[in-house]
């Protein structure tokens, strides 16, 4: 006999909780709620990933990684996707709509935020502090790392001491050892890579076989995407996961409480799911889009938007790449991708640099021969073609490595998600329009880090380094568009993800981040989802719900 969250005897016409989005935040929340015996319905506009279509083991993988795994929804154009108008953006948003969400195509680099990421206003005088600290989140980090099956090594001096991930790290590889030794000589930080990649059998995960195909659907069953680590278990616990369910509106009753989600199935038929509590876990683009779509007479500027901040403060983490060429064979055509190791030497603010905050670096392999011919990451000014073609390819193939640089992005209200006046998805629902410009601080920050990354690779023995040309498709991390805070005038949700305006409507995804950190965000998204979920469970008897 199931307990109802608030209303014993409500019956099956209304779920305790409706979660919108089956990415990592939704997965963590649904699993934990179901463990408590709550009745959970999840609405996901996409499908389960079909790994039979993943092409990592195919001979033509490099030229044909598969349309299903394209990162940009405007390229992928599957029935699961909605278009995104990025004409006024310096960076294209890339995301995955389906069970597992962004974890299906993420690079699996897994990082907690640093303690300073929670207090940049106090430390650096910029942006806002989070209404919680690293210590508040630490136990949740440890639990989600066990749940996802993270590999890495405890003891990283870039973080407070504590429990490390459950699995040993991926191999450093030849290139990792070379860079590690160089950083030791420079006196710079490095640490074995932390990844959502299994290195041993772990739950539903198989050990990684280092094909380097993480970004295009891991058919080897090693990447800890939420479709593998959470959703099967959540469904065993009784969670009802509906795919092909595109939500177009959250409805609000006369008492100002959310009372349902209106969604459209693949045949175009409209449905309504009623629930006592609604949780948005639709990512930093989908969540503000839905809040804006849910405008009503009482919420003319969008639901939960009395602050006017829904959709604003979008942060996308500008991404840079520096590649080095080595005389020796580094066996770097494949490997965890993912990262062999990471560097946080320049993560914290140093006022002498002329900018605030910093970036995280991840060391990666560079791929096979087709990849060796591309403008990215080798630099468009360095054409590979012509009389020296074979020599150029051989110089790159397996004899190179690259640093991927994730730059902290500062929140600016001018960077935002809006509803497009003309563009719609396949169901006629207005598409999001992105307005985003890389800020001055981010530009200075990236320039500095690129030069340091060059020095790193040169110290490791690279006889040549190249800076990848900027490409648009790097907006992996969508953060900040429904800011968390204690003041309803300057934030959308409270420290537990509850919207200030609608007391039974919650946001658990990366939208709620007050600042972006310079880390890959999934660890913190998952940990925050768990923390917020458990607070909801603890407070359920005080939870306001529709009559």
């Amino acid at each position, binding site marked *: 006999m199931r307990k109802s969250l608030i209303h014993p005897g409500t019956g099956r016409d209304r779920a305790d909780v409706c979660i919108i989005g089956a990415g990592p935040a939704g997965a963590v929340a649904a699993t934990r709620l179901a463990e408590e015996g709550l009745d959970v319905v999840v609405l996901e506009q996409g499908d389960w990933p079909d790994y039979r279509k993943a092409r990592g083991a195919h001979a033509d993988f490099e030229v044909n990684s598969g349309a299903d795994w394209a990162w940009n929804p405007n390229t992928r154009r599957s029935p699961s996707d909605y278009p995104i108008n990025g004409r006024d953006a310096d960076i294209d948003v890339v995301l995955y709509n389906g069970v597992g969400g962004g974890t299906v195509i993420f690079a699996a680099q897994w990082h907690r935020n640093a303690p300073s990421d929670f207090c940049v206003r106090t430390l650096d005088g910029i942006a806002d502090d989070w209404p919680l600290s690293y210590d508040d989140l630490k136990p949740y980090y440890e639990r989600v790392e066990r749940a996802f099956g993270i590999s890495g090594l405890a003891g990283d001096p*870039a973080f407070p001491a504590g429990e490390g991930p459950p699995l040993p790290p991926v191999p450093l590889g030849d290139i990792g050892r070379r860079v590690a030794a160089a950083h030791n000589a420079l006196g710079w930080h490095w640490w074995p890579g932390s990844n959502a990649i299994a290195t041993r059998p772990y739950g539903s995960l198989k*050990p990684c076989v280092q094909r380097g195909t993480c970004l295009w659907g891991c058919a080897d069953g090693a990447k800890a995407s939420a479709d593998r680590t959470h959703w099967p278990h959540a469904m065993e616990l009784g969670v009802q996961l509906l795919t092909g369910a595109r939500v177009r509106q959250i409805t609000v009753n006369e008492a100002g409480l959310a009372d349902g989600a209106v969604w459209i199935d693949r045949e175009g038929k409209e449905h309504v799911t009623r629930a006592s509590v609604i949780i948005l876990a639709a990512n930093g683009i989908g969540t503000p889009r839905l809040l804006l779509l849910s405008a009503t007479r009482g919420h003319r500027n969008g639901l939960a938007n009395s602050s006017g901040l829904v959709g604003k403060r979008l942060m996308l983490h500008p991404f840079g790449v520096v590649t080095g060429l080595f005389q020796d064979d580094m066996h770097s055509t494949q490997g965890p991708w993912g990262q062999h190791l990471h560097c946080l030497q320049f*993560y914290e603010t140093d006022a002498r640099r002329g900018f605030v905050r910093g970036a995280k670096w991840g060391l990666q392999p560079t791929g096979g021969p087709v990849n060796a011919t591309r403008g990215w990451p080798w630099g468009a000014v360095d054409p590979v073609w012509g009389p020296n073609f074979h020599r150029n390819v051989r110089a790159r193939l397996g004899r190179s490595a690259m640093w991927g640089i994730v730059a902290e992005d500062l929140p600016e209200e001018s960077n935002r998600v809006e509803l497009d006046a003309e563009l719609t998805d396949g169901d006629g629902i207005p598409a999001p329009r992105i307005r985003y410009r890389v800020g001055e601080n981010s530009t200075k920050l990236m320039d500095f880090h690129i030069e340091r990354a060059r020095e790193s690779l040169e110290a490791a023995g690279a006889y040549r380094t190249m800076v990848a040309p900027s490409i648009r498709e790097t907006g992996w991390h969508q953060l900040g568009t429904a800011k968390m805070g204690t003041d309803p005038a300057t934030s959308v949700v409270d420290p537990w993800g509850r919207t200030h305006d609608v007391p039974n409507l919650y946001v658990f995804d990366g939208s709620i981040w007050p600042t972006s950190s310079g880390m890959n965000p999934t660890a913190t998204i998952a940990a925050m989802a768990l923390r917020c979920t458990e607070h909801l469970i603890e407070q359920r008897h005080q939870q306001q719900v529709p009559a």
Partner: protein
Amino acid sequence: MTALDTAARARFAALADLLIPADGDMPAASAAGVADAGMEAVLTARPDLLEPLHVALSTAAYDEPTQALAILRDKHPAVYSALGELVAGAYYLHPDIQRRMGYRGRQAIAIDVTDSVLAKGDAELLAPVVQRGRIWRADPRGQT
């Protein structure tokens, strides 16, 4: 099928051979079937490359291949890039090329647990990092 006529296919082969000429034991693109089965295989998988191919071939129709390629590179970089993708993709699909390169695609390489961070001297590599001590900044609001 791409339905390229013989003349168009020859133009493509000429452009491909400029991009990937023979060198030592490596054959030129056309000798590796890039303008034949290789092109067909890539275009079947990547139909998005067909349109830039037609643009490239129409550009090359009235110019000598070296000049046509320079025009594409300088005036139509996206088309030039797509042409390179098609040519390289087809070239490295050829089994003989893969054999000569010693590259067989993304292979399954099991993680050797003895290749862990505690093996091969990695513990010694880590020691200086640990000895340098913490680099994180504490939260002045308390804790940690």
